[in-house]
C-alpha cells in the first residue's frame, strides 16, 4: 500500500514521523511525563501516535483527563473504551474537586463556564503527580497566540508561560533541561493543521466520539454560536432550544463549545466540509470570543 516515489514521504507521514520523534524525546528526556487527554480529536490523534511510538510496548506514561463535569456522555464512553483498547493508565482530575476544596470559585451567571477553572485543576494535578512534562494536542494553526509556541514549551515554577522567554528550537534538537519545580508543556502536533488531523484520522482509520458526526440535537443560539442544550446551561430570556442537525468541530466544556449545522456523517464528508469551511474551528468557542487576546492570557496562566 505504501507508495514511495524515490525516497519521498507524504506530508502526513512527515508529520507523523516528527510527532513520534518528539514523543520519544519526551519519554527519554523527562522523569515523569504525562499525556493530557481531553477526548477531542487532537488528543486522540496524539494518543494514537504515542501508541505507535512505543509499539509493541505500551506508552511509558499515563494519560490525564481534566474533567470539567460538563461532559457529553458520548465522549466519556469513548474515552473509557479508547483507554481500554490501548491499555493505557488513565488519571482523571475533576474541576468539581477543585471547587469543593475552595481552590477555585465557580463563575456565576448564565454565561458561566468552567473552562478557565480547568487551569487550576490541571496545575494541581501536575504538581500532585510530580509530572515534569505534560503533552498536549494543541496545534499552532489553531489560534494566533499559538503560532509562536514551541514543541518544548518551558513553564516556570508557577506553571506560567512567558512568550518572550522561550527557547529557540533548531533542527530536531530539543532542550528539555529545567530546574526542580519547573515543567514543560510539549506539543507533538505543533505542525499539524485541522485538515491534517482529519486526513490522518482517515488514513489511520481512527474511531472518533459520535458527537463529531452529524446528528440531531436541541440547541440554542447565543452570541452567534450554537450551543447544545444540556443540564449545565442556564437559558437566557428569549432563548428557546430548537432541534437542528449539527456536529461538533472541537470537544470541550459543554457550556462553551459551539457546534455547527452539518450533515457530514463520515470522515470523508467532514474533510469536504473542512476544505470548504470559512470559519475557524475555534470560531465556535465562546471562551475565545471574550477578547482578542483571550487565548494568550489563559496560556500565560498555564492553560493547555
Amino acid at each position, binding site marked *: 500500500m505504501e507508495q514511495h516515489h524515490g525516497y*519521498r514521504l507524504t506530508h502526513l507521514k512527515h508529520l507523523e514521523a516528527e510527532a513520534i520523534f518528539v514523543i520519544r524525546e519526551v519519554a527519554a528526556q523527562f522523569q515523569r511525563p504525562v499525556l493530557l487527554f481531553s477526548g477531542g480529536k487532537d488528543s486522540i490523534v496524539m494518543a494514537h501516535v504515542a501508541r505507535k511510538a512505543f509499539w509493541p510496548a505500551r506508552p511509558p506514561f499515563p494519560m490525564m483527563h481534566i474533567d470539567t463535569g460538563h461532559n457529553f456522555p458520548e465522549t466519556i464512553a469513548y474515552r473509557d473504551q479508547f483507554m481500554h483498547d490501548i491499555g493505557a493508565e488513565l488519571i482523571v482530575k475533576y474541576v468539581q474537586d477543585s471547587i469543593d476544596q475552595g481552590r477555585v470559585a465557580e463563575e456565576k451567571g448564565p454565561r458561566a463556564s468552567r473552562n478557565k477553572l480547568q487551569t487550576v485543576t490541571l496545575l494541581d494535578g501536575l504538581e500532585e503527580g510530580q509530572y515534569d512534562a505534560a503533552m498536549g494536542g494543541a496545534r499552532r494553526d489553531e489560534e494566533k497566540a499559538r503560532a509562536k509556541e514551541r514543541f518544548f514549551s518551558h513553564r516556570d515554577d508557577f506553571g506560567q508561560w512567558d512568550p518572550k522567554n522561550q527557547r529557540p528550537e533548531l533542527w530536531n534538537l530539543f532542550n528539555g533541561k529545567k530546574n526542580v519545580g519547573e515543567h514543560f508543556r510539549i506539543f507533538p502536533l505543533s505542525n499539524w493543521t485541522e485538515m491534517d488531523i482529519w486526513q490522518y484520522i482517515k488514513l489511520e482509520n481512527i474511531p472518533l466520539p459520535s458527537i463529531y458526526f452529524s446528528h440531531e440535537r436541541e440547541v440554542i443560539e447565543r452570541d452567534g454560536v450554537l450551543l447544545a442544550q444540556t443540564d449545565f446551561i442556564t437559558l437566557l430570556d428569549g432563548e428557546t432550544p430548537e432541534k437542528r442537525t449539527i456536529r461538533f468541530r472541537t470537544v470541550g466544556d459543554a457550556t462553551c463549545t459551539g457546534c455547527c449545522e452539518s450533515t457530514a456523517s463520515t470522515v470523508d464528508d467532514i474533510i469536504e466540509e473542512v476544505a470548504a469551511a470559512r470559519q*475557524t474551528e475555534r470560531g465556535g468557542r465562546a471562551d475565545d470570543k471574550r477578547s482578542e487576546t483571550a487565548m494568550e492570557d489563559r496560556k500565560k496562566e498555564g492553560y493547555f
Partner: protein
Amino acid sequence: MTATKGYLDMDLLRFTTAGSVDDGKSTLIGRLLYDSKAIFEDQLEAVEQSSKQRGDEIVNLALLTDGLRAEREQGITIDVAYRYFATPKRKFIIADTPGHIQYTRNMVTGASTANLAIVLIDARKGVIEQTCRHAFIASLLQIQHVVICVNKMDLVDYKQEVFDSIVADFKNFASRLNIPHIDFIPISALNGDNVVDKSDKMPWFQGGSLLYTLETAYIGHEFNHVDPRFSVQWVIRPQSKEHHDFRGFSGRVVGGVFRKGDEVMVLPSGFTTRIKGIHEFEKELDEAFSPMSVALTLEDEIDISRGDMIVKPNNKPSVGQDLEAMICWFSESSSLQTGRKYALLHTSKEVKAIVKDVRYKIDVNTLHKIEDDREMKLNDIGRVVLRTSAPLIHDPYTRNRLTGSFILVDEMTNNTVAAGMILER
C-alpha cells in the same frame, strides 16, 4: 473523493521568509495565506476590526500574522512564528522570522528546518546590507533554494530596468556564497502581482508566480539518502508475554536508507550485526529512509542505548572529541566563555563541551573575517574549536544537516545559547 486522494499524496515544503523591517514581509505572508484560503472569515473580521481601530485605510493583511499582545502593543514582531497553508499540491510551513535586533538568531532558527528561503528586497532600495546577511545565513544553514522577491514593484512603475539591475547586483554578491539555486521574482505583495497569479503589469517577466515557484521547487535533496545513519532514541522492551523477546531500537533515520537484512555497525561500540526487522507500529517494512521514525530489531544481542548510532560498516561517520564548527551565539545575557563547560546536544546524544578557541568572527554584512574582536555575543557568527567529554558520532553539516548540527546549553540557566554546524576537518 478527489480532494482526499490528492491530499494523501501531497508533499511538504518548509520555507523561511526574511526581509528588513517594512520590506513587506507580513503583507506578503498575509497575501499568501489569504489567497490560498488559509484565512477564515472570523480571522479576517478580527483583522478588519483591528485595522479600523488603528486607523488604517485598507485592511492591513500584515495584521493576520501578527501574534502576541506585546508585539501588537509595540507594533513589531519579536520571534519566530510558524504559519501553515496548503494548495492541492503541497502543504507549506512558513517560519516567519521578523527583522529586529534578535534577527540573526531568529533567522538561523527558522532556516535550520527550512528547504527554501524567501528573501525580500524593496525595489526602491535595492540590495542592501541586510539582503547580504539574509543570503549568507541561508547559505550557511545549507538552504538549497533561495527565492529573491523584489517587492513594491508598483512603486517603481513595474519597470524592468529596476528589477534587472537588482538581479545583477544580487548575483554579483551571491557568487561568493554557496547557494545552488536562486530564483528572482518581481512582485507587489500589496496588490498581489506575481504572488499567486502571474501579473499582466509585468509582461516582460518570463518566470512563474511566487506560489508556482513554491509549488514546483525541487525538494528531493532535503534529506541525505546516501549515508545510512540511525540515531537511537529509546529502547523498546515490552513487559508482555506476547512480545517477551522483542527488543526494538527506536529512533529516526537521520541519513540514508536501511533495509531488512542489511549488515550494520553500532557506534561507538563498533559491533556488527544484521537488521532483523524494521517496525512501524504493527507493520513491518522492507526499508526505512530519512527522516522516518521506526524501530529496528537486530539479529544479535548487542548492548545499545540512547545516543548510540547505527550505521553501515562501509560508510562510517567521523567519531571524535575534537571538532571545528561555525556557531551562532544566541544568548543576550552572556557571551561565549572559552574554557567553560557547556552541555552539547547532538542527535540523541548529550555530552559536555568546552570551546577552546574562537578562530574568527564573521561580519555577516560584508562576509569579512573579524580577527581582532573574538568575543561571541548575541547574533554573532564565528568559527570555533571544541573539545567534547565523549566522542561525537558526526558528519560535516554540509553533508548531513541532522548529524552535523548541535546546540550548546548553558547549565546555569538551562538556556540554549548557541547553534553549531560541524565543519569538515
